[in-house]
Structure formats: structure tokens, C-alpha cells
């Protein structure tokens, strides 16, 4: 798993790639916490390179959703591969976070 981040004011786009499971969910958690701790309230997670994610990854997203909500922003996802989208749907996460086609659309959702 790898996370690359680009910052723009109080929003950021974190592009996660590879595999997120119980063996490395802690690293994913630390990466997102570090971004939010820099003062980011609108966090976009770009899933274009995400090959696999289990419930351990959902747990990390839930924590990041809570933290960004509390900061007055939120978390949005973009470029979600079909099989990951199904994980989000079955787990009810599509009700907790918005899913956009592009990172630009997701980032724009925090502008207002």
C-alpha cells in the first residue's frame, strides 16, 4: 500500500494504491491521521489505484470520516473501482461518505 498526498488549503487529495487489509490498516490509519493533523478538514481519498480493501480499511475510513466531520468538513471518495464500490455499498458506507467520479469534483464539494 502507498499513499500520496497533495494539499490545497484545508483540503487534500490522498491517492491510495495497492492493498489495504488487516496486516497494514495501521499504516493507512497513520497516513490519514497525519494528513488531518496538518489542518485538513476536507479529505478526498482517490481510490483509482486501490486493488483490494477489507473491513480493516473501512474501519480506517470511518475514523477519518468522524475526524473530518468534527473539523467541519468531511471525507469524499473518488475513482472507486467497481469491486471496492460494492464493498462500500454492502457495508452501508455510501451513506457515510460521498463518492465522486473525479478528484476535482470531490474537492469542489468542500468549496461551499
Amino acid at each position, binding site marked *: 500500500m502507498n499513499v500520496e498526498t497533495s494539499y490545497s488549503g484545508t483540503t487534500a487529495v490522498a491517492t491510495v494504491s495497492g492493498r489495504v487489509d488487516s496486516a497494514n490498516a495501521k499504516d493507512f490509519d497513520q497516513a490519514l491521521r497525519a494528513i488531518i493533523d496538518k489542518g485538513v478538514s476536507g479529505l478526498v481519498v482517490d481510490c483509482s489505484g486501490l486493488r483490494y480493501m477489507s*473491513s480493516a480499511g473501512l474501519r480506517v475510513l470511518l475514523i477519518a470520516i468522524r475526524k473530518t466531520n468534527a473539523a467541519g468538513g468531511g471525507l469524499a471518495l473518488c475513482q472507486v473501482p467497481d469491486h471496492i464500490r460494492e464493498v462500500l455499498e454492502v457495508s452501508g458506507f455510501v451513506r457515510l461518505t460521498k463518492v465522486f467520479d473525479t478528484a476535482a469534483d470531490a474537492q469542489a464539494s468542500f468549496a461551499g
Partner: protein
Amino acid sequence: MEVRNELHLALDGDEPRRVAEMFEEMAVEQDVPVDIVFKFQLALDELLTNVVSYAFDQDTSDAAIKVTLEMKDERIVAVIEDNGRPFNPLLDAPDPDLDLSAEDRTIGGLGIHLTKAFVDTLSYERTEGWNRLSLVQPLTAHSEENA
């Protein structure tokens, strides 16, 4: 198509990934549809993560976990066995409330919830000190559903 692999696992948090990736390799070689490869490996990962995390107490010297993966007769069969404490994830895991807000949601039970949604038939039995979980996935499910 007929392949069978038996794997013995150490009590280690990295083991579910090893099994999931081994399954993926095996299934791709057998031309299993990618959608089923993903869902079945997620189920294996979730169930094995439960076993390595919760099935055993501190004294793990006698701990044994084994997985049998079999692909034949147009179906995938996996059997997960462990000699840990009795636990039936199909009944004993809490059902997650998917309608709660992010603030009120708990993550418990989500792995089992996904597993139940993603695998056709799951069964559990406890015999002579062993938990035995079976996962069965026909490879023709989609065509049957559409018929």
C-alpha cells in the same frame, strides 16, 4: 479443472494476507471470474483475520489453523479449521446497524456481514475441539441467477 491446496497457518497477523493472495493466484490461474476472485478472497481474509485475532488466548503453543482450498466441479470450496475457543461467526458476530451515522456506527461485525453477502454458502460446525467453517461458491451462480 481440479486443484487442491492445504495450508497450515502460524498465529500471525500477516497470515490472512498470505492465504488470500495464494487463493487469488490459484483462482486467476483457473480463470475464475475476477468478481468472484475478489469476493471470495475478501471472505477468506475476514474469517482468517477473526481466527488469528480472537480464537486463541495467550498460551498459543498448541494453536493450529489450517485452510483447505479446492476448485473442482465448477465450484470453489474453502474449509477453515482451528482448535481455538468455540466461535460461530455466522451466529455469534453482532449484526452491524447500517443506518447509523458515522458518529454512532461501530465497525464490529462488518467483516462477517461482507462475507455473508459475498459468498454463496457458509456453514459452521464444532467437532472434537475444532471450529470448522466451510465456504462454497459455485462458479456458475451468475448464469443461474440470470436464467
